[in-house]
């Protein structure tokens, strides 16, 4: 007789999805039989707006539903939250002037946003978007989805990456890999077109700008250099137009519309629409009808281009730095790939063409290419896509604070990741038990000009005379671009405990607590639903029993049977207001049993249907 060998690896049906978690829009994709495919929602939409709203019954909703609520409930709705990921409140003063973020109190280390009466951290808001994408994917694939590849701007620092990973966990997704957006785009592009050569990816999205230069060689996608600006995107163009329109309205209506958040959101929609049209027509009109008033302004592409020229120019400097870091001239770039909605703007295309002296590729849908690339990377991790490999780099140098507030660099920017560096530390005074290491990211020389990542506290060092302890600390940037620190006592070889105090963002404990809370919330929601369902069932059976008591069959029952029914009704009514659906269901069942004979005799007397809603076994 043959034996069965069960290969659990083969029975795995759940797919790893690829997610583009964008500033303005998000998408989810999966590797299909013929290649990566964007997953649509039940209404056939591919794009999920990265907008989150707290409904009146305190549920977080994301996507289209939240987009509508942005107009009617702007005080409970938030967008462009990616700009706040992994940042401190002092970093976002510029943002606060332009975006209607409502920062709650106690936002020093982690920003908290107010939606209605409740507060949420940026990872929690992003998790709501991710949950929507997860739901869409589960509905479309018909299987649970628990693992994902999520893209981040290449120029995201450690804290911003960590925040994105936290968001994934909060949404119930294991983030198997964070992939840089331009790199993901190159995967989708390389799969489609190019075999070997040097490719520049110009990624101008809703809120971030990235440039990456890659060498494609026999299926290896090696990033040579990357650069960017995590606070530069189409959002900035919208804000520019919005400000002009608000000024117009001020002088025409004699009214400061900027104080009316619903009015501002309607106007924002109007300017975004105008911006998008100007990519295809030479002239359009910004139009707003609001509260019985009307605003109209014709805008020519020429004026539009004059307005946005400084913003487009800001993208070129990172491009030049990136070329110089890759030690390449523009002539050596074989192809330029355009990614992100803002690359539809003709002025952007012209600027890129001038800089790289090559006509940029625009045939891929700039909104979808990043998500498609994320799905390819998911396929690589699942082992479905062979012979393709991404070798990415860290965008920023990593260093530690040394004497005099100077940063000593340990891992240089554009180092291929994973990358590591080891540094030995010692004590300054006799018997010292702790050493604090301040880790920073950035290109500048002084601590004050770099980005503080975390303080690592080497604890419980053996007490020794000053300078005798030797603690070897290893800094390792993993394939996600996230820093891991381990330490060991070089004399004893013993592992040294390290306590991490992130400068911005959530601690491990906070993330854990949030996950627990969301589980508890989910359980609470579940209990609430079961209780409601049980009450509905109780209503039905009580109504049916009351009706049956008026029928001819009822007086015909034995007195003890009638007593049993009466008491079962009282029992059920007494627990009806309780919070335990188990008890409620028990009493429903008891009444069911007590009325069984009654139901049978009613049927016998051909009064069928009077007990509709009760079970007859």
């Amino acid at each position: 007789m043959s034996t069965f060998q069960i290969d659990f690896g083969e029975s795995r049906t759940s797919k790893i999805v690829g997610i583009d978690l964008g500033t303005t829009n998000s998408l989810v994709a999966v590797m299909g039989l013929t290649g990566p495919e964007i997953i649509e929602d039940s209404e056939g939409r591919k794009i999920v707006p990265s907008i989150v709203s707290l409904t009146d019954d305190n549920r977080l909703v994301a996507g289209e539903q939240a987009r509508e609520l942005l107009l009617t409930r702007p005080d409970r709705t938030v967008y462009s939250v990616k700009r706040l990921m992994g940042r401190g409140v002092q970093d976002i003063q510029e943002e606060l002037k332009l975006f209607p973020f409502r920062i709650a109190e106690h936002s020093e280390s982690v920003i908290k946003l107010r939606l209605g009466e409740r507060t949420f951290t940026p990872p929690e808001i992003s998790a709501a978007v991710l949950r929507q994408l997860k739901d869409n994917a589960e509905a479309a694939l018909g299987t649970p989805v628990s693992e994902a590849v999520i893209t981040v701007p290449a120029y995201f620092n450690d804290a911003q990456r960590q925040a994105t990973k936290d968001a994934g966990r909060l949404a119930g997704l294991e983030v198997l890999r964070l992939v840089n957006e331009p790199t993901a785009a190159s995967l989708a592009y390389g799969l489609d077109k190019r075999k070997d050569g040097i490719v520049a990816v110009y990624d101008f999205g809703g809120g971030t700008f990235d440039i990456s230069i890659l060498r494609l060689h026999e299926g290896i996608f090696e990033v040579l250099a990357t650069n960017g600006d995590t606070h530069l995107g189409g959002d900035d163009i919208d804000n520019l137009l919005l400000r002009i329109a608000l000024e117009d309205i001020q002088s025409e209506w004699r009214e400061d519309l900027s104080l009316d958040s619903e009015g501002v959101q309607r106007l924002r929609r109007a300017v975004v629409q105008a911006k998008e049209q100007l990519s295809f027509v030479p002239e359009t009109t910004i139009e707003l009808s609001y509260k019985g008033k009307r605003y109209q302004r014709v805008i020519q592409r020429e004026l539009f281009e004059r307005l946005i020229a400084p913003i487009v120019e800001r993208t070129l400097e990172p491009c030049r730095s990136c070329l110089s870091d890759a030690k390449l001239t523009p002539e050596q770039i074989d192809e330029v790939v355009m990614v992100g909605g803002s690359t539809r703007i003709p002025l952007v295309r012209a600027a890129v063409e001038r800089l790289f002296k090559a006509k940029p590729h625009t045939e891929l849908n700039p909104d979808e290419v990043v998500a498609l690339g994320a799905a390819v990377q998911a396929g690589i991790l699942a082992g479905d896509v062979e012979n393709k490999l991404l070798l990415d780099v860290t965008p920023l140098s990593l260093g530690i604070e040394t004497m005099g507030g100077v940063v000593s660099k340990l891992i240089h920017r554009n180092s291929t990741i994973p990358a590591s560096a080891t540094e030995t530390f010692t004590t300054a005074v006799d018997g010292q038990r702790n050493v604090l290491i301040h880790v920073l990211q950035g290109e500048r020389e002084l601590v004050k000009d770099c980005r503080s990542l975390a303080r690592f506290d080497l604890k419980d060092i053996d007490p020794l005379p000053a300078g005798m302890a030797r603690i070897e600390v290893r800094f390792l940037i993993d394939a996600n671009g996230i820093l891991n620190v381990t330490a060991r006592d070089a004399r004893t070889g013993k592992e040294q405990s390290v306590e991490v105090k992130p400068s911005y963002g959530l601690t491990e404990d906070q993330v854990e607590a949030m996950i627990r809370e969301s589980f508890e919330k989910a359980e609470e929601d579940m209990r609430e639903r079961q209780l409601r369902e049980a009450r509905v069932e109780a209503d039905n059976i009580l109504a049916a029993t009351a009706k049956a008591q008026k029928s001819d069959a009822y007086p015909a029952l034995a007195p003890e049977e009638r007593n049993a029914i009466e008491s079962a009704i009282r029992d059920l009514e007494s627990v009806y207001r309780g919070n335990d659906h188990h008890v409620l269901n028990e009493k429903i069942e008891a009444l069911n049993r007590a009325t069984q004979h009654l139901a049978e005799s009613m049927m016998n007397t051909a009064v069928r249907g009077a007990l509709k809603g009760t079970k007859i076994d």
Partner: protein
Amino acid sequence: MPTLSNDYYEFFGLARKLNVDQAELQKRFYELSRQWHPDRFSRKSAAEQAQALEATAILNDGYRTLRNPVRRAEYLLKEEGFPIGEQRSKDVPAELLEEVFELNMMLEELKEGDDSARSQLEAAQQNFIGLRDSVDSELEKLFNKYDASEPRSETAKQALHEIRGVLNRRRYIENLLRDVDRAIHPAGAQTEPVEDRL
């Protein structure tokens, strides 16, 4: 699980020479990346994943070190017991004393607002770039001398000793060039990593 070598030459399977065939190095880097990259291990055990991460870190660090002649030489010196000391930039190499003195004068003048020092500095910059080039060709000869010698022989040690001296001089020149560059272009505050020149 196979044990991993921390030694970059061993990891890449290359002879311990100071001249390294760049095309061969790149080829091996790609092969080893395909073998070890964490992407290939996401369905494996935690221990295998940890080893892949470790291996790739060694691989990438090694590639960065070996593909750059200066870093490569510094690495080999350290491994062979000739570490580059910390005294690297304080002691002025004797043969540069005069030029360094003049250069510091010019830097001071520029700092005090004498803009005529700028063109002098630019000339000095060219001079130091020329010096660096000659140091580089000196290094090249010493690399060949080392590679031709028996490992750990007196000739080999002698070559390494000389290389250490030349590398210290080179680093000194690099630092000067960086200071000059910063004085001339104060706006470009982004510092160039020195590592990948030569």
